[in-house]
């Protein structure tokens, strides 16, 4: 079960450029991903929107596997800034979760 984590929601809300809300689940990103990543942008962002902190921790390998090639972003019909969002998540994981920096 996904438990909504309010702190994560607040953290993401601070990033004005994180714009996954616009996603309407068309799946174009998933179809185009050259890595065939196990986790697809639309699913990942959905977890973020819901504040599913546990899921993000579990999926950090995938988040760091993205090539940032922007093939998905260039073709997103809703203008979701996918690579920016991925960078935000990496920054969140590094700073808030693993406290590496």
């Amino acid at each position, binding site marked *: *079960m*996904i*438990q*909504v984590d*309010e702190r994560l*929601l607040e953290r993401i*809300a601070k990033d004005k450029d994180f714009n996954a*809300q*616009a996603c309407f*689940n068309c799946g174009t990103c998933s179809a185009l991903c050259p890595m065939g990543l196990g986790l697809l942008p639309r*699913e990942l962002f*959905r*977890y973020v*929107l*819901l504040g*599913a902190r546990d899921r993000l921790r579990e999926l950090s390998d995938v988040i760091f596997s993205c090539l940032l090639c922007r093939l998905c972003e260039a073709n997103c019909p809703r203008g979701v800034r996918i690579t920016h969002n991925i960078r935000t998540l990496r920054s969140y994981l590094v700073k808030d979760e693993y406290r590496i920096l």
Partner: protein
Amino acid sequence: MEAKIGVFICYCGGNISDYVDCERVREAVSKEPGVVVAKTFMFTCSDAAQEEMIADIRKEGLNAIVIASCSPKLHLQTFRNMARRAGLNPYTYVQVNIREQCSWAHTHHKEAATRKAIRLVRAGIAKARLSIPLEPIKVKTTPAVLVVGAGVAGMRAALALADMGLEVHVVEREKAAGGWVKKWARVFPSGRPGEELVNTLLKGFEERENIYLYLETEVVEKRGSVGQFQVRLKGPQGEQEVEVGAIVVATGFSPYVPKEGEFAYGASGVLTLQELHALLKRGIEGRFVYAGREVRNVAFIYCVGSREKEGHTYCSRYCCTAAVYLGLLLAERYPEVKQFHFYRDMRTYGKYEIFYHNCLEKGAIFLRFEPPDVPKVEVAGERFFIRVKDRLTGGEEVEVPADLVVLVTGMVLSPNENLVNVLKLPVGKDAFFNEVHPKLRPVETVIDGLFIAGACQGPKNIAESVTSGLAAAAKIGALLLQKELRLEPLVAHVLKDRCTGCGECVAACPYEALSLKTEDGKQIAYLNPALCKGEGACVPVCPEEAIEIWGYGHEQIRSMIQGLCKEDL
């Protein structure tokens, strides 16, 4: 008078003649008694054919005509007008449908189609032979209207009617006009408080001298018929009677009230859409606080009391947009409050899709559920936990903490059994009032002169309610500004010398057009022709054959059966 009948048979450019041998039909019916002229045409509805028929009517001095072509739905008026132009009474013209009933229905069997056509045309001739010239029933109209319900639909209709020069009586059972809209914090799409809309309408009332508003008043009795109703009103000052030509019912809706425990309704912090409106209308300064505790998360649960498997099976239309719009208002006043919307299908249709979009952009989170997996609300001290299988996360179960739960409640009919009985309002299966035709006659009822408008007909938003109010006003204007109504004369009439006053027909009539009355010391049935629809329920129940429909007399029907049965094909 000797019958002189013209029979005109249509090819319909092949639609009929490809399957029905029209020439054989003409041949077979031309020797029927009374037939003077029998012709075929490529298109009877064409101008040239009509001119030729008019010439025949005049030259041969015809006193009845039969046109065998398509459905009377299509060209009844066309040929009635043609008859009128030829100087023939339009009610001595008989339409026979050999297209839908013969050529189109029996494409696989041309011989049978032709034989059926012959029989039908013979029946038509038999009917025409006994036809009687009729005149429309004329009813003087009272230039006044009763509007029941002073919500936005009724008030807007009243203003429009008053501007047509009609006297308008507006009856409202509550202490103030404005209905539910008055209670709403902010209404879409204008963003104004509902009260402002109502005040604009009320100002219009004050500026017009021909609108009378009766508050805390109900309708207790209705007599008469279209053009001339007498209505008795009961208010704080006692009873009074008004004379009106038409009635608009705009009694609106009631918000659905959840059952105790439905999504934890009854617990402090679980509100309906109406209760949230009231809360936001009162306004809260500073932070969003409810019942002494700060609200950080708000959960909206959609489709409460709508689209149920049994009961309220319909979609209430306005609630998705209303909830999203209130979400925007919340986001504007309390940007730090997080919103979770649990919806089934987002129906912010038409121009209002933008509000859903805006709400998403404001950061509201939408979770989609599908019955039977509806959200479960758990009360945990001062907080709530809502658990749902979210379709947008691949059906995974999500648990959302919330401080306030808003049940997005739908519309049900505002109960008013008394009014339904007094006005004989037709009620549909969803308990809302029924129109004659949802697309083509959306504000008329089966009772002439009785109209419905607004949410009493089914869930509507404000714009739709006002539109239907104006539609009713336009229909009434067209009706009452004529000063004299001309009604179809194909209604029942009582044969006084045969009637024994048994009352069977009175009980059979669904329109209350029949009653018993004493005439020359004898009790007989009396018919109000303005109420009669010519439906004919009274005819077969009469043991004395003492009631019949003009244009469908007993002799005519018998003679039609003879015509149908004749075996000379």
